[in-house]
């Protein structure tokens, strides 16, 4: 229990650090959202309208510290302010719109990649120096060396544009209404296949190698040999004895990978015009939409922190040593 609380405390601290960074970073840099706003009108906006707008957005000249305290208070209440680019919508609404898709995309991709990669790693370790072990890791590492978005571009070009097997973008068909029915869900799967597929393909190699290498180490350990000597079925030895223990480092890496995969899926989203946070973030940055940018960065960070905490819980369950020490 103490362990869990300790970790929770750390994540809260990390969240605060992210908040602070998030607040000061844009304000210490050159540039001003009003200028960017002004720019969108290519000079068609009268100066009086501009001045009035500044006030509407609360672009005040109050001391930074005062702004900071106000900001923290608002964030605690779940109020990220008003988006500049999507005025007058609150940032929370703009983010809420796409968050579910980003979480779906990154989450599914991560879980699939982890499951498939780990499984392949087990197989590769078991058939050490078999054809699978010889070719698969190198191939996947090679594929993994490509930038995600490049694979995405290629997949879109070949499978979407040329062969027309998959839709070219969006999360579901434009003429469907979101709902919990087969047509809609099937369409979501169809649209998600390429984005998820490319992320999975690009990240598979890491999981495979990590699992394979640990498995090889574990397979050489005494208790596995003992299990084998006892005459237990090979599959049982492999899965129950070796794989479960070899899983630990991979699970530890899972939390870390989440941030990484999220980053990659942001790029992938842009290529597939997936209605998630990816393009929204880039756009917010371009428009110097501080509130929106802060909101997106914060939400992504919180998601990663939350997932890390869940991973900690999973580790607790997987690794008795952690349980004992707490």
């Amino acid at each position, binding site marked *: 229990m103490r362990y869990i609380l300790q970790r929770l405390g750390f994540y809260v601290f990390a969240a605060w650090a992210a908040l602070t960074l998030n607040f000061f970073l844009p304000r210490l840099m*050159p*540039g001003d959202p009003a*200028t*960017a706003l002004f720019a*969108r*009108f*290519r*000079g*068609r*906006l*009268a*100066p*009086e*309208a501009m*001045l009035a*707008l500044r*006030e*509407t957005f609360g672009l005040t000249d109050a001391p930074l510290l005062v702004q900071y305290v106000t900001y923290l208070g608002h964030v605690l209440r779940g109020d990220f302010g008003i*988006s*500049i*680019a*999507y*005025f*007058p*919508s609150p940032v929370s*609404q*703009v983010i809420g*719109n796409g968050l579910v898709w980003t979480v779906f995309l990154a989450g599914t991709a991560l879980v699939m990649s982890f499951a*498939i990669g780990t*499984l392949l790693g*087990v*197989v590769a370790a*078991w*058939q050490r120096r078999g054809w699978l072990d010889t070719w698969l890791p190198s191939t996947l590492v090679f594929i993994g060396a490509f930038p995600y978005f490049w694979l995405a571009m290629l997949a879109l070009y070949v499978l979407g*544009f040329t062969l*027309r*097997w998959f*839709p*070219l*973008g*969006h999360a*579901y*068909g*434009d*003429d469907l*209404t979101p709902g919990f029915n087969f047509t809609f869900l*099937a369409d979501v*799967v*169809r649209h998600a*296949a390429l984005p998820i597929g490319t992320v999975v393909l690009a990240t598979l190699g890491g999981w495979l190698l990590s699992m394979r290498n640990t498995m090889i180490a574990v397979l050489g350990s005494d208790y596995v040999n003992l299990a084998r000597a006892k005459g237990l*079925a*090979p*599959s049982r030895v492999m899965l129950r004895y070796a794989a479960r223990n070899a899983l630990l480092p991979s699970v530890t890496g899972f939390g870390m990978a989440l941030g990484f995969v999220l980053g990659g899926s942001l790029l992938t989203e842009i290529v597939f*015009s997936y*209605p998630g946070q*990816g*393009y*929204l973030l880039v*756009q917010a940055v*371009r428009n110097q939409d501080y509130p929106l940018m802060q909101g997106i960065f914060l939400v992504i960070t919180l998601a990663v922190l939350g997932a890390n905490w869940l991973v900690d819980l999973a580790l607790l369950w997987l690794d008795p040593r952690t349980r004992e020490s707490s």
Partner: protein
Amino acid sequence: MKPAAPPRSWARLAFVLAALGALACARDVPRAPAGVLVVSQEQQASWIRNFNPLTTATSARWPTLAGIYEPLYVFNSLRSEYVPWLGVGHAWTEGNRVLRLTTRDGVSWSDGRPFDARDVAFTFDLLKRHPALDRRGLWGFLSSVDAVDERSVDFRFQRVFIPGLDEIVAQQIVPRHVWSTVADPVAFANENPVATGPFTEVRVFQNQVYEIGRNPRYWRAGEPHFDAIRCPAYPTNDRANLALVFDEADWAGNFIPAVDRVFVGRNPEHHRYWFPLTGSSIFLYANTRRAPFDDVRVRKAVSMAIDRSLMVDVALHHYSRPADATGLSDAFAAWRDSAAVAAGDWTRHDPAAAGRLLDAAGLLRGPDGVRRLPDGKPLRYEVLSVAGWSDWVRAAQVIVRDLQEIGVDATVRTYDFSAWFQRVQEGNFDLTLGWSFEGPTPYSFYRWLMASATVNPVGIAAMGNWHRYGSPAADRALAAFEREADPAKQRALCVELQRVFVSEAPAIPLYPNPSWAEYNTSRFTGFPAADNPYADPSPNKFDRGELLLVLTTLTPR
């Protein structure tokens, strides 16, 4: 010993993949239902519901400005004429200090309430009470707006200012009975608009697509001819172009490279485009507050060094043409004076003449081939452009190449938009690319190019005239133009402005921007085309309502 588990998991994986594949091939790309026009105009990651036509905080959407709401007059930029819309006529009285505008009879709001002159007066009053909504700066020259009766509105001016008409009639009108109860119209999202336009019923609003159905009470009998407008959210130009190529979108206003091959080539019968040169003219601005660009000979020499034909090939895929020395795009074709164009020899590519001009200005080549100022400083300049605006970056690359040839050591420098804009507005540059002002008359265009009133000191941000050039001759012509209501005399004054521009070369015109329009005639007919030029074909032309002309003409097959 054979491992038992792997084959099963392989089988499972194969099954999953097969299922995915089957699912993937199950449906072809869906087309929108008949009568639904799919338009791609702005690039957004996802839609947020907002149909406020007065908002200045975000750019209001095109359907909001020209589709849901309507202006008093629609401006047809191709014919350079006004089409009466919610207003039917106007007259100047009291020595051109009062504009009386007559509103249309028989128009009703989409909720059934009648539209009248009081709605117009209310709308302008709203802008007065909330300066953040006054995006055109109307109250900079208006002193009062009153409904005289149900059909007429009086606009009283602070001073005689004829070009003010152009800004007044472009204003979208909102219903008094709805907006008078809105507490904060600046932050009003107006999710269910009540309006006069051809499309007013928001039927679908999701983050990746929205659809607006026709207004059953539209005042133009029998129009619109189709059922709804659908706007999918495409985050990038590229994605929007894919939608066009694959017949997902019917109408778009994007830049497409190699359009003949990429778009038309895939379906020559129905994939069409028309890029009239009615966009904003693109200029190379030289900071006239810095030597040697304060010398007209140097500005002209820089201009003559530039190979504009190569520029429009490289930067614009041959979609535009080199600008003439008046700088006017085809949106001002009716105003262009052929004598002024002929007199402007300094937009013709002639590096030798450019070199002679620079020699005459005393900027001689040093031993390294780079020219020197009289004080010995080499002519070494950065040409500023915006990062990611590929046409500009390429145009800048051509300029740099050409300037080096005449002994000016130029390099391209790209900045992020806001950083670039700040420098340009504050006059903190030597050479930069930039746009120019548009409008029904060349008044704003020339005013922001050479009126002394628009010159801000270096360091103070300016809305236009970034090169900071003031011409007394232009000031006189502009002042006369402001007081002149007679179109023929306006034309003469405009010719005078062109002459001044051609002789003083305050800025260096490069090329007129095309108005982008691609359309698919397989489902709808009636798009403007070169052989049927009834209006500008681009969905980007919503600011003065021109798009309404197209929306009320399109017919489903």
